[in-house]
């Protein structure tokens, strides 16, 4: 592409923004990393991490955090995948309406949404009234102050981040491919496994990476839906800093959380690149 702006000087326009992020984002994170290797007397070492990982309770918290994030991601995928495809095949007015129902909650704050679920999930709340009314249960189900409610609220908050990337891919998949497979006698499940699913993988990877990384670091949703007793990695970290004033423990926890986030980003980027390369190779072969 030719351009009138394209001079070597244009690159310098990125300097204020990139410099700002380097100073206000990257540098503080680097200092945090250094702090986690420093004990109260200023000596360097891995004692913080040794203490952290030798504590069975901490290991349990890390495991719980990863488990709940995985469950939320899986449920978002199981619901979001068919929803994205149904959206891609729907008429334009219906698509517009569905965008609205996904983006409006996305623009409403996470605190408001979590608060809304605390109202809905009460033992005398709307959800229980509906369950009782439909005769599905005999007595109110306990949905608040436990993991069930947390999962419902988290799925609600993160579902748009799963549906939208998959929708972007689903829209580009030619529906005639599936029809062609059907014409050739393929079973719908076979078509899904061999044609549709592989083609939609880039969207699935992006969606899962978004949802998992946000679910690992969620703080407000568990705090409101379950309360302080429920310990996740973010809650433990916030407590170490805000109440215990333990800088080393806090920064160790922060670095563990950061490492998980970086792993997800690097892993999903690598996976997306590989998938794209494979699709391109397949395209070249035909």
């Amino acid at each position, binding site marked *: *592409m*030719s*351009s*009138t702006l394209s001079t070597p000087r*244009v*690159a*310098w*326009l*990125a300097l*204020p*923004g*990139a410099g700002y*992020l380097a100073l*206000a*984002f*990257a540098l*503080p*994170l680097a*200092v945090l990393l250094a702090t986690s290797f420093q004990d109260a007397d200023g000596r360097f070492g891995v004692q913080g991490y040794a203490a952290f990982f030798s504590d069975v309770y901490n290991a349990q918290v890390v495991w719980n955090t990863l488990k709940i994030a995985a469950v939320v991601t899986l449920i978002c995928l199981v619901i979001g995948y068919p*929803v994205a495809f*149904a959206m891609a*095949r729907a008429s334009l007015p219906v*698509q517009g309406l569905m965008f*609205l*129902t*996904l*983006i*409006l*909650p996305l*623009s*409403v704050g*996470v*605190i*408001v*949404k979590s*608060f*809304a679920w605390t*109202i*809905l999930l009460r033992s005398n*709340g*709307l959800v229980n009234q509906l369950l009782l009314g439909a005769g599905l249960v005999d007595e109110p189900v306990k949905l608040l102050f436990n993991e069930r409610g947390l999962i419902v609220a988290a799925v609600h908050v993160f*579902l748009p981040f799963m549906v*939208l*990337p998959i*929708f972007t891919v689903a829209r580009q998949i030619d529906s005639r491919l599936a029809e062609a497979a059907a014409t050739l006698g393929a079973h719908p499940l076979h078509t899904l496994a061999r044609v549709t699913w592989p083609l939609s993988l880039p969207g699935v990877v*992006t969606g899962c990476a978004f949802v998992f990384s946000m679910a690992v*670091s969620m703080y*407000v949703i568990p705090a409101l839906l379950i309360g302080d007793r429920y310990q996740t990695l*973010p809650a433990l*970290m*916030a407590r170490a*800093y805000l109440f215990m004033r333990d*800088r080393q423990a806090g*920064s160790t926890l*922060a670095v563990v*959380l*950061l490492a998980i*986030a*970086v792993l997800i*980003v690097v892993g999903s980027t690598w996976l997306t690149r590989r998938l794209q390369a494979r699709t391109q190779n397949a395209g070249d072969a035909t």
Partner: protein
Amino acid sequence: MKNAFSPSRIAGSLLLAATAVFMLAPLVVVVLVSFSSSSVFNLPSGNWSWRWYEAMLRKDGLGATLTLSVMVASAATIAALVLGTLCAIAIEQGRFAGREALLAFLVSPLLMPGLVIGVALLQALRALGITDVFWALLVGHIVITLPYVTRTVHASLALFDMRLIEAAQTLGLSRRQALLQVMVPALAPAFLTSGLFAFLASMDNYPISIFLTDARSKTLPIEILHYLEESPDPTIAAISACLILLAVVVLFIAERLVGMRRLAQF
């Protein structure tokens, strides 16, 4: 073409309808509860009332909190628009190695845990001796709003045909006029949507702000969570209903000017 009433289409429609209900029900319930007359979280059964909105207006400190939140969000959005647009132009138009990597770096705050960024900033600002809540919040909120602008404006620039600028110059406009009259209007939707989303993200931010505020100056999300712990009554539903209204207004403006599809670019 497949039959419109085939089983798969009906199943698809039902699925979409159920999803719409699931996504919107919580917001509708909050708005309804805010108009109830009872002091527990009940849906109004015939008795509609404005009492929780009146209670909201009487609440101490809410005005100062709202002012702080709006000021930080506005300042952060303006700073992000300026810095982010410059970055987007540099990456799209510059000829230098590592442009992809630079874009990834500029968007990366969105993917890092907010609490971790908050803790890191807290340490850094303490080391620098910055204790003023407004400035501390502004520093943190620019970090999280900048990626929205960079990403959206960059995507929009990538679609913009720079030959239009040359064409305008051929037709007699100066380069400066051509940029202002051709490129700026073409990018206006991107400025608007990313600006609106940056503003909402800043207004809603809890994980970074919790580390940068103090007992005297709080932002809206922190104050709401504080109310919830202290005295949970439908006043919070009224405040929440106002925030939902804000989101609806913002979306309405964006939809009018850009269209719903452009809002959902991932």
